[in-house]
């Protein structure tokens, strides 16, 4: 697929060098809330990716007609409509998942990544680039969520995707030596983990820059 350099950059940038969570520090709030287990984290990531990409496209399409004074309101209306549509569709076709995400699905509206990308990118760029930018940012956000959720679910409850990974016989209750780390279930640990990822990310990227 022949993509212009700008389009490629719009997609790949947010995955690493310009990651919305790690570099722009956006969307932290929901990253804390839905990362106790892997499954909701993945569904949240997919939902956010779809909504960022779609709202970027819609806003980019109408960007030249939007009155400047009410542009934030217009962007909010677009995002709110898309979130409502996604939540309605999930309730109709994936009820369990919709229930699991409960209020966080509606709270996608308040995810700073959405408004940030609409204001910073979609308002001034063409539809194709905006779509790729939305996709990239959504995925950039998703992979952080998945990494954090992986660590929290494994260490916090000894499971992955709800399946027991740590053998039962290891637990102190069963005469073993191991116990789950209750701290991992608490939101503060998500923040600390995100901090660790940012640390590692900076350390690696700085090294590359110095080469």
């Amino acid at each position, binding site marked *: 697929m022949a993509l212009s350099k700008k389009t490629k950059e719009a997609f790949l940038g947010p995955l690493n060098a310009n990651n919305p969570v790690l570099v722009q520090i956006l969307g932290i709030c929901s990253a804390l809330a839905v990362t106790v287990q892997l499954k909701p984290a993945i569904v949240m990531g997919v939902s956010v990716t779809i909504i960022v990409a779609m709202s970027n496209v819609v806003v980019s399409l109408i960007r030249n007609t939007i009155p*400047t004074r009410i542009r934030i309101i217009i962007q909010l209306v677009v995002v709110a409509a898309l979130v409502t549509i996604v939540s309605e569709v999930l309730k109709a076709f994936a009820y369990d998942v919709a229930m699991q995400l409960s209020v966080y699905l509606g709270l996608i509206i308040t995810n700073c990544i959405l408004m940030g990308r609409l204001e910073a990118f979609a308002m001034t760029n063409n539809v194709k680039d905006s779509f790729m930018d939305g996709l990239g940012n959504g995925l950039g956000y998703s992979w952080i969520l998945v990494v954090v959720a992986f660590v929290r679910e494994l260490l916090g409850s000894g499971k992955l995707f709800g399946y027991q990974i740590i053998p039962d016989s290891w637990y102190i209750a069963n005469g073993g030596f191991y116990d789950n780390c209750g701290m991992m279930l608490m939101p503060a640990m998500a923040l600390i983990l995100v901090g660790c990822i940012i640390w590692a990310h900076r350390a690696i990227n700085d090294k590359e820059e110095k080469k």
Partner: protein
Amino acid sequence: MKMNTENNVYTLVYATVMVIIVAVVLAVINQGLKARQEANARLDQQKQMLVALNQDLDACADPAALYDSLVRDTIEASEDGKNANIIRFEVDGTTKYILRLHGQGLWGGIGGYLALDEDKNTVFGINFNHESETPGLGGEIVTPKFRNQFNGKHIKDAEGQLRSIAVLKAGKKADEGQEQVDAWAGATITSTGVNDMLLNNLEEYKEFLNTEYRVQNTEYRVQSTDQISPYSVSESGLSSVSVNGQNEKED
């Protein structure tokens, strides 16, 4: 031609048209998906009741059909119709009653379905759900490990007095004549919530629970299953799963 997008009239018209378009789109989608969503919510409640009836859902291809094969009729809990209706089931030839429970956990509502044997005393099974209890702590009330403790317990004492079942920390003893189960460690407030939910809700069903069972249930108005829907009584739409990042307070 470049439109003047800074004009007041343009701004007003733009905002109005935008809102109307979005409203129409959302209304159409909502109407189109409504039937499916309601069917899903209904199925979810049926599944929860089947779990309370100790049915193995993993081995069941069509929970709705299983539900239909077990459900018999609905009994009004009290004459004034204030309480949720009780649903009568027949499992392996014996009558079971399902009582709907609702209460308050730490972060939000909790609920459940209590299945009683024909004697209106022995617990056949129970299933809990919650809106937003902490995963790993209060959220664990939905697990079989917690709910299976209730199976076979009695809600009345030897004299037939309604006593409920106490949810207590390991080491604590319930009052004389009351049976007990262990609270979930680390989830004190949610466990207390389950305890209070059982106590309060069973009190509401007292009229039904204290009436001797007679073969045809002549003392209750019995309606056929087609006319009344057991789901009409459940407005909260609780589910057995939830995600939450908040932490349970340890005492």
